[in-house]
């Protein structure tokens, strides 16, 4: 996810990374990683640096342009998937309407990645 500051609200963090910040820690489906108190700022926001370190998420900063990107977690399984529970994926269709993968619960889904290039 792209960041212009290193604290974000919980909802933004969850949408951007797939990790929910809960009282028990940072959670993805059945996996919860405990967090130190410093993970939450006094006003209830998420301290991205602290959570990133616990989850093994690299933070790459382009200082010249004042933007950072937070990479995916490496600390739990060391694989692209942390759990077999499908992550949420919300993307636009060709007409620009948002579509959520989770809206297809109850059906078998084959997700096919392709490209024009």
């Amino acid at each position: 996810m792209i960041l212009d500051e290193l604290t974000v609200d919980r909802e933004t963090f969850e949408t951007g990374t797939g990790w929910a910040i809960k009282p028990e820690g940072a959670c993805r489906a059945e996996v919860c990683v405990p967090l130190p108190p410093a993970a939450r700022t006094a006003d209830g926001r998420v301290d991205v640096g602290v959570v990133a370190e616990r989850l093994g998420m690299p933070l790459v900063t382009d200082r010249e342009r004042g933007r950072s990107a937070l990479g995916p977690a490496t600390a739990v399984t060391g694989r692209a998937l942390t759990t077999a529970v499908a992550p949420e994926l919300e993307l636009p269709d060709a007409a620009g309407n948002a579509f959520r993968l989770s809206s297809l619960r109850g059906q078998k889904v084959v997700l096919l990645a392709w490209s024009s290039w």
Partner: protein
Amino acid sequence: MHPKGLEVVTVGLDVDPDAARPFIEAASPDHPSLIDSAHLVDERFGVVNVPNGVWIDEAGIIVRPAEPAQPGENPALESFRNIDLTTVPPDIAEVLAEARKIRIDPDLYAEMLRDWVEHGSESRYALSPDDVIARSQPRGDDEARAAAEFDLGQYLHRNGDHHGAIVHWREAHRLFPDNWTYKRQAWNFEDPVRQGHTDAYDGSWFEDVRKIGAENYYPPIVP
């Protein structure tokens, strides 16, 4: 297979959504056809090349992680086989000769998919959660950092700073050379015909494929 409860969702990996749109409109599909301009499926599902497929069951559990997915013949690869290489310029012939070594097995993938649609979790192709995680792409610091670098690149490109994007995409390629979506997307902006060598990047489709051997471009499907 749709009447038996299979929904197809296609995801077009294109930093420029206008590049994907004409293909979707020409196909006028009746399934969801999404555009992923940040290559988010790489980060979330471990996609590293296209076409790739992921199977998700009725409960939202992944039963096969991202793997090469060719449910039918690949028209591009087919057309390469039918070109007389003596009739094209030598540099193009060289690329086509390499592309012909790419191996796909459309019959096997279609058969696996049919079996899963028919038998669900009893299908021998539906994997356990532990196997799904273990078979998903390895992800260490380099691969995760590459995802962040690619993300910064696509953000800068889409905000009009293509030169800024190249810096980050070069770094993504260095960190994660096995990710073909990061490489082909970037090369394509410089040379949409051949994805050939340009001053912007160290590699090109031909050079990088020849390095690993085109027969390894799509790893064989492990049923």
